[in-house]
């Protein structure tokens, strides 16, 4: 399926966003977010505030991972959650980052394993196709 790049602010730069949903594993408290398709992200990450919104508030239930990014080193809090992409729910290990004050990053260990991704930067479009086996 082909998508247009999305501009969020007047005069801003169009980027490859998808509208996605997140909820706890087995939960029903869903929130819609925008996620940017990011081949530079090792796995899918959300701001930690998203974890709180869906009710993941017990820090003892997260595993902690050292994470690095353009802004330096930080601690990621990892827990399974469910992400809805194009109407299908996937259960992935999501890294919630207190330092990420931005939209979700759809990364390689999960999103890119489920979808084949292509970019047409000149046309400002991208294309995602589910792989034959999506488990």
């Amino acid at each position, binding site marked *: 399926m082909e*998508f247009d790049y*999305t501009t*969020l*602010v007047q005069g801003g730069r169009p980027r490859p966003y998808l509208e996605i949903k997140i909820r706890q594993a087995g939960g029903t408290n869903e929130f819609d977010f925008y996620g940017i398709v990011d081949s530079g992200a090792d796995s899918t990450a959300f*701001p930690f505030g998203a974890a709180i919104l869906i009710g993941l508030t017990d820090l003892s239930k997260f595993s902690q991972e050292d994470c690095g990014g*353009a802004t330096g080193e930080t601690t990621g809090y990892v827990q399974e959650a469910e992400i809805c992409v194009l109407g299908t729910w996937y259960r992935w290990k999501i890294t919630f980052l207190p330092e990420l004050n931005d*939209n979700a990053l759809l990364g390689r260990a999960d999103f890119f394993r489920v979808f084949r991704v292509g970019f047409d930067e000149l046309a400002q479009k991208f294309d995602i196709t589910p792989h034959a086996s999506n488990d």
Partner: protein
Amino acid sequence: MPKQVCPGQPASLNLPEKYAGQWVAISGDKVVGAAPTIDKAFAAASEKGEKHPKMVHIPDRAEHLFF
């Protein structure tokens, strides 16, 4: 062939610059809360009775390049 409409295609919000750098809570096509942090934007929406707004971070226009 008509263009395929996909449920994952986000709206190009094109919000005014006053929202740059903010989290916005959106219900329908209206901004129902805005704040520098996700929890405060949600709280603002919640005060208006919106329990499940769409949460979107609006990039700062000054952030021309993203890495």
